[in-house]
């Protein structure tokens, strides 16, 4: 019994180690708030730890954790909306500041500036998306989840995921000055 518990604890430790960054990254890109993203990440793993025994592996641990993170984020915004006297994004990092983080790679200074400008525009488009569209967009284009995983993580049908992705892409295209 003790060994089984020990194994479970070890398993959970390895899950935390493998997925902590991804969960934090998703929450950071959704909220643009370091402290909030850290708090929600901790809450996510705390919640996951409590229900770890009930996790049957029907979906991947990543999808399961992402679902918990998305629900926590939803709860947070719902509670925040009730606190109408606070600004909704009081601690959120500015969109331009968020766009500054771009590895230079092998680009020239001019190319890097142009790329940063485009990243800033994508952020602006993401900021204008609905909560669902933003979640789906970030899961697809930042976390590289496929449609099935996104559907499992968000609890939406795949058709709905596709529709949200199409609208989000159209918005990004529009922001970047594309034709569609």
């Amino acid at each position, binding site marked *: 019994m003790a060994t089984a518990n020990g194994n479970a604890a070890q398993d959970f430790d390895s899950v935390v180690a493998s997925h902590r*960054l991804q969960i*934090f*990254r998703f929450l*950071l*890109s959704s909220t643009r708030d*370091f402290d909030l*993203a850290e708090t929600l990440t901790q809450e996510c793993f705390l919640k996951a730890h409590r229900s770890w025994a009930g996790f049957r592996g029907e979906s991947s641990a990543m999808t399961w954790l992402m679902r918990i993170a998305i629900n926590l984020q939803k709860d947070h915004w719902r509670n925040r909306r009730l606190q109408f006297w606070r600004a909704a994004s009081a601690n959120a990092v500015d969109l331009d500041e*968020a*766009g500054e*983080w*771009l*590895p230079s790679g092998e680009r020239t200074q001019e190319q890097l500036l142009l*790329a940063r400008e*485009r*990243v800033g*525009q*994508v*952020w602006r488009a993401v900021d204008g998306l609905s909560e669902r569209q933003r979640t789906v967009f*970030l899961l697809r*284009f*930042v976390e*590289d989840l*496929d*449609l*099935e995983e996104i*559907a499992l993580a968000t609890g939406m049908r*795949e*058709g709905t*995921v*596709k529709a949200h*992705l*199409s609208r989000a*892409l159209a918005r*990004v*295209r529009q922001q*970047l000055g*594309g034709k569609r």
Partner: protein
Amino acid sequence: MKPINKFNAGAGQPQEWDALELELEPELRQSLSDFKASVHAWSDAALNRPRTVATPPARSAWRMAAVWALAAVLLAVAVSGGLYERHQRQQEAQIAAQRAAGQQRGQAAQQAVSSEDLLANVDSDISREVPSALEPLASLMTDNGNQ
């Protein structure tokens, strides 16, 4: 970016979605790729940023304790002040009542004395009076008495 294969892209219209992703213009594709790289770099930096030890809560705890102590003292002063004032008022009211009672008693005593004198005078006046028909006889009695 991991491509979405048409077998796991949803039961309804896998080809449609594949077409949508494949149709992404190079510029958009590059922008999305840069966006992803930017978010990854940002979150890596955010997760590894140095954290300061949170000492302010301890100070704020002392501050809270001081505020509570001050509030308690103010409350005690306010309550005791109120009680003292009430006690003073009660004492003043008692003294005033005692004074009023003393004054009433003095007045009653004076009234009693004056009414007794009045009654005595009336008695003496009445005792001296005789009917007018007996007036000469009374005077004779007074004369005989003098003689």
